[in-house]
């Protein structure tokens, strides 16, 4: 009896959740579907969902017009590099904030977050002039630095919250055993911190991948990532829904696939210390 009730409840949940999930996912699904239509089918009235002549033509056109792999590679380098360097810089800071807190720790943390509130466009000219002087315009190095700095506060914050969840008792036990600071970090903390670091890497990779102001304004031909790739497909002349969809699908596919595989990690890891 109880089991039947549970099963019925489970069915209701399942149906409801799938409907909601599909509604939320629908814009992405529709984009992917449209990318396989011809331009005429893309705007046909009434719209067609699945029964159209699937074509790869749009992908061919997009690939012919722009070297997708180069944009992709730049995105990978910029997002990957900035995230990695950011985490390397943030781990010690977050560690010390979490385990050797002082009265000012919270202030420093909040101040770090507040640096993210500077409106980017207000400092475009100063930063552009600085980049010219440093020779960093249109270089991946320059973008790695900028994107890293943009995300650093979030990285520190996330790591700090993870580290705080590591029970201090274990550390003290290790210290009693005469472990040095280095050993403490390497053997005690790291294993416990790895899941947190992993989801930090993941979230910030996504944020860096999607950063569209600096990556667009500080690049030209060499370092331009997928955000610039998209900017060459938005509203050209004539019918463009299908080609735009193809370009969009190509721009979001890598991160979507990454997200798919790391979904468990993301669901588990994105706590920001909210679970207490």
């Amino acid at each position, binding site marked *: 009896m109880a089991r039947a009730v549970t099963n019925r409840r489970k069915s209701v949940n399942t149906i409801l959740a799938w409907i909601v999930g599909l509604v939320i996912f629908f814009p992405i699904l529709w984009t992917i579907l449209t990318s396989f239509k011809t331009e005429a089918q893309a705007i046909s009235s009434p719209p067609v969902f699945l029964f159209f002549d699937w074509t790869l033509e749009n992908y061919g056109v997009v690939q012919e017009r722009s070297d997708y792999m180069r944009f992709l590679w730049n995105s990978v380098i910029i997002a990957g590099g900035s995230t990695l360097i950011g985490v390397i810089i943030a781990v010690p800071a977050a560690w*010390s904030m979490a385990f050797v807190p002082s009265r000012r720790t919270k202030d420093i943390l*909040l101040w770090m977050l507040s640096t993210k509130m500077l409106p980017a466009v207000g400092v475009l000219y*100063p930063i552009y002039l600085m980049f010219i002087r440093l020779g960093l315009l249109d270089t991946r190095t320059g973008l790695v630095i900028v994107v890293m700095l943009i995300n650093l506060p979030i990285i520190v914050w996330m790591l700090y919250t993870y580290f705080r969840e590591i029970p201090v008792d274990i550390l003290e036990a290790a210290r009693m055993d005469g472990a040095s600071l280095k050993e403490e970090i390497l053997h005690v903390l790291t294993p416990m911190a790895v899941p947190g670091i992993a989801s930090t890497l993941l979230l910030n990779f996504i944020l860096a991948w999607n950063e569209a102001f600096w990556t667009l304004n500080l690049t030209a031909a060499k370092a331009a990532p997928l*955000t610039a790739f998209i900017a060459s497909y938005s509203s050209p002349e004539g019918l463009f829904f299908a080609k*735009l969809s193809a370009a969009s699908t190509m721009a979001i596919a890598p991160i979507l696939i990454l997200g798919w595989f790391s*979904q468990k990690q993301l669901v588990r890891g994105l706590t920001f210390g909210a679970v207490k």
Partner: protein
Amino acid sequence: MATQHSRSAARLMMAPAVILLLGWMLVPLMMTLWFSFRKYLPLRGGDQGFVGFDNFVRFITSSAFWPSVQTTLVIVGGVLLITIVLGVLLAILLDQPMWGQGVVRILVIAPFFVMPTVSALVWKNMFMDPVNGLFAHLWKAFGAEPIVWLSDASLFSIILIVSWQWLPFATLILLTAIQSLDSEQLEAAEMDGAPVFSRFVYIVLPHLSRAITIVILIQTIFLLSVFAEIFVTTGGAFGTRTLTYLIYQRVLESQNVGLGSAGGVYAIILANIVAAFLMRIVGKNLDA
């Protein structure tokens, strides 16, 4: 408990991040302040010297200023409201036992992976277009006159697009928080015959308060500087010009860097007011 040794080690470890962020904050801030006191018109011979508070006065007395502050706050508030209410409901739903939970979760978080520019383009062209958009087809199918979303319901449309992007984030954080809720407590309450609503209000919501705070904090930081969604969809027309967008117009469209920089200073002040306000709530909830 911490020794002198570990304290200084801690400072040393914090140094790189703090110095970098200090640099990242101070250098542009100083430059913004410097330019905000100068008449700097890139298309008219560049920097033309010190003008005192002219830029500040001109920016704040411009007819566009207060509406833009209001628009900013409406967008931030609207998105927060939608993402948190729907996020809580979604988190509760996703926490229930069901078939294919993993797949549903991916479907729900997927929008978070989409670049803001792409999502704005897709919404604008494929959904909200008054002739060829899906919404228009849907409305016509029910015999209604299609809504011209981006001009007649511009602010709502932008809030909708931004909420779609941020709902997954809110849901994820709230979901992890719900999963940590003691199910025995809930079951006990259920046994006692507490109705669903009061179980939600007295047990679930308090448990989520911390997570909600986090969502508000992180999202506000990102929402204050929403730009791509407006740039792509309305270009600031129809009352969707936020403070960030107004600064963009001053700096890049009117090519008046001095005036834009003064706007930047105001934006920093606004951000700090919002931040101070947030810290008040967060601080309580977030005892370090």
